[in-house]
């Protein structure tokens, strides 16, 4: 007997008491919880996102379409990064010719090479106001998971209000589970030493979010 059959056989014998015509999943799982906590206008939802991002120590900026290029340039200059990583499909008008050297994900083949890059700029798939979370799904403007992981400085551009949802249920509805997903709430953090929160162990220690629109 294979282990598969052994385990499944044990499961079935263990469940001998369960009556077969039990209620189907849809009935058995009531969903009386809220889809969204509180009523907010679009403006207020974006405001809440900004608040919660900042509360989890992301640095939040706002920019209109025509200013985003200058803002990114300024943030990179302040950081002093010599090289900057960009995903293949990043909108070209977000970057200026005067920015540091751009490196595309594919060109920076090995993790060791990525480790020498100072900053990364990406878009996002969706942002969740109630939790202060941005979600990346590997689309061309976000690139592979590794590029937002190894550099120490991540600038993420969120288009508001289109990419902003209120809640976790609303976010899951928009996402495609077949894609590799990364949910990010503030920079990397640990509380393993006496439960004191310390920013940055392994992921980017600085997360800057630009609310664009």
């Amino acid at each position, binding site marked *: 007997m294979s*282990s598969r059959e*052994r*385990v*499944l056989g*044990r*499961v*079935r*014998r*263990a*469940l001998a*008491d*369960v009556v077969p015509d*039990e209620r189907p*999943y849809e009935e*058995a*799982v009531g*969903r*009386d*919880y*809220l889809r969204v*906590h509180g009523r907010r206008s679009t403006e207020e939802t974006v405001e809440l996102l900004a608040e*919660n991002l900042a509360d*989890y120590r992301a640095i939040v900026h706002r920019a209109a379409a025509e200013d985003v290029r200058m803002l990114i340039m300024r943030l990179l200059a302040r950081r002093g990064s010599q090289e900057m990583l960009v995903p293949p499909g990043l909108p070209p008008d977000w970057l200026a010719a005067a920015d540091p050297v751009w490196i595309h994900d594919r060109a920076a083949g*090995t*993790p*060791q090479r990525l*480790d020498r890059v100072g900053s990364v700029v990406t878009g996002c798939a969706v942002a969740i106001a109630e*939790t*202060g*979370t941005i979600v990346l799904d*590997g689309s061309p403007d976000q690139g*592979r*998971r*590794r590029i937002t*992981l190894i550099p120490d400085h991540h600038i993420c551009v969120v288009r508001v209000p289109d990419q902003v949802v209120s809640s*976790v*249920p609303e976010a*899951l*509805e928009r996402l495609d*589970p*077949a894609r*590799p*997903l*990364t*949910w*990010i*709430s503030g920079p*990397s*953090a*640990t*509380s*393993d*030493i*006496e*439960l004191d929160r*310390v920013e*940055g*162990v*392994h*992921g980017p220690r600085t997360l800057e979010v630009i609310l664009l629109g």
Partner: protein
Amino acid sequence: MSGTFVGMPVHPAFPEAAREAVHDPTLRGNLRHATHTIRAKRAKAVAEVSDWAELREAGRRIKDHTLRHLDRYLEQLEESVTRAGGTVHWAADAAEANRIVTGLVKATGESEVVKVKSMATQEIGLNEALEAAGIRAYETDLAELIVQLGKDRPSHILVPAIHRNRGEIRDIFRAEMGAWGRPAPEGLTDTPAELAEAARLHLREKFLRAKVGVSGANFMVAETGTLVVVESEGNGRMCLTLPETLISVVGIEKVVPTWRDLEVFLQTLPRSSTAERMNPYTSMWTGTTDSETADGPRAFHLVLLDNGRTDALADQVGRQALRCIRCSACLNVCPVYERAGGHAYGSVYPGPIGAILSPQLRGTASEIDASLPYASSLCGACYDVCPVAIDIPEVLVHLRERVAEGGPAVRAGNRVLLKPAKGHAAERAAMRAARWALARPGALRTGQRFASRTRRLHPRTLPGPGRAWSGTRDLPPVPAEPFRDWWQRTRGAGDDKGGAK
């Protein structure tokens, strides 16, 4: 019949194991500080969501429904993962899981792996099994690193090094890091930021060269084949993203039916465990991506682990323990855990959940497992905070009955009849005597009067088999007059007039 191995050496019963801990002021100080900090933060995080009760109920129902149809959802999960390019393996016990993982690592030709913190791999003692096969496993969670470098054991589900303070951590880093790779920086102090930086530098060289990653998972979605890992530091993302081969060892109870079910647990788990609205990082992956868009490991193996879970599933009262999403909220509110620490539980699952999970996964044959259902004051705080509403006190009492009285149970898939555990003969005799006396008011009155008159002669500890009981408890003083006599003397007259109002 062999017990389920959960990666722990022979261990004394809980009261003996806890004795040392409760007399260690450093340990108690570390634990008190940590549990009180997280307790207050959690209460605040939960109060933020007005529908907590509804979320908790939905979580309970999703888990219960899944467990009651576990065979169907496991088969669906297997199909979904396979369709997405992953390979599914089944492991009936720890030895088999270790054999599968060791074989998979060897097939890659590598001799080291990076690990995401995982309860399941600790439970089966994977690191030891890999080491025996000449493979070095690097723990990459900061707390697990502290535990591994300190040649220590984890003592908490969420913060395994909760029993260590910053000074102890600095000493471990200074003494041990060099033997495992990049040594600690010169002049390392005990500030948490510096310690975290030392860990970052030490581990980064391992992440960047790793070819094989090993993880667990918080959830597996049957309908899509998606696995979910919830974490804070980014070490999880590193291990799940950079290696060419990813091996995930996951308990069969971690499956949920649908993608939508995650909306419940992604709201309740972070608030219950780290007291945050959302944990810093959550990674979700479904099989492997095709070579066009290759993102993450090119080979993905899922090892579905039983290791006693089906035995727990067979217990109609105890199976609710399998709802556990490992948030650790029950540990942080438990007055027994706070004083005894995690090591006393003799299992990778400490605290209230460990007290009901370990004896079910391993059986109650050993001294430690037979003592765990008693490692509780039954105050119920663990039930109140549980985000999937596991009635831990109910299961504790149920398991106490099994230990004291024996009875039918399932071990390694077979129905067995358990004998009453040794050491409970006195307890059973006392209960039988109480039953006899309480059914005979005359005998009870005589006995109570006798006890009152001889109260000055009573010893402070019980003799014979009662010694163990009174060794860890104060004997209640016997009053000068039995309550029933006192009632008769002071209120008894009223009874004659039919005075009960």
